């Protein structure tokens, strides 16, 4: 079974604070993604990557940075958090060899007060 692990699972920060969400996959997948989930909007793609050192811009990138340090690790950075970034964040991985199915982590709930 594919494995994607996110940390922290829950985080509360203040407006203007600095947050890093971490994601590790042990699937040997090339592609990794960061999505945010909000009621009425579904899952929206923030950033994605097809390998270490690569970064692709998603559909809602403003206010977010990301970095893929290894094939396994993908980080999402919020350098000046705002209340509009309060959301449930999902990391996922995929690979053409597994039919491009997205395998999601358990999610990281972020609250910005």
């Amino acid at each position, binding site marked *: 079974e594919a494995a994607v692990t996110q940390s922290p699972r829950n985080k509360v920060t203040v407006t203007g604070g600095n947050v890093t969400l971490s994601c590790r996959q042990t699937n040997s997948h090339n*592609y990794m993604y960061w*999505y945010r989930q909000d009621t*009425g*909007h*579904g*899952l*929206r*793609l923030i950033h*994605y990557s*097809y390998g270490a050192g690569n970064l*692709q811009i*998603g*559909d809602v990138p403003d206010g977010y940075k990301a970095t893929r340090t290894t094939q396994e690790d993908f980080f999402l950075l919020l350098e000046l958090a705002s209340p509009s970034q309060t959301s449930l964040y*999902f990391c996922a991985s*995929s690979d*053409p060899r597994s*039919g*491009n*199915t*997205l*395998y*999601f*982590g*358990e*999610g990281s709930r972020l609250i910005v007060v």
Partner: protein
Amino acid sequence: GDSVTQTEGLVTLTKGLPVMLNCTYQTTYSPFLFWYVQHLNEAPKLLLKSSTDNKRTEHQGFYATLHKSSSSFHLQKSSVQLSDSALYFCALSGTGSFNKLTFGAGTRLAVCP
């Protein structure tokens, strides 16, 4: 750009009845369509994915047929169970990038006894 429309936000049904969740899409490229299911407090996971035009795909009692003529990929089941209560997302991979999925807003299915 690509887009996915799910017209129902909430569908409430009694156990044993049939269900159809609507999904239409827009893309300028040849589409691949997916249905993901998310149970309460869990990560989304793949339910089924499209095959060739006008061919039905099935999994766990659910089925869907890609119709390129109407840009649709509706999800159906002949008899819903209590365990089918979940959030269902339709997703599209088009526009030249098989690894970038665009999700619809989601439809919550609530099955009552």
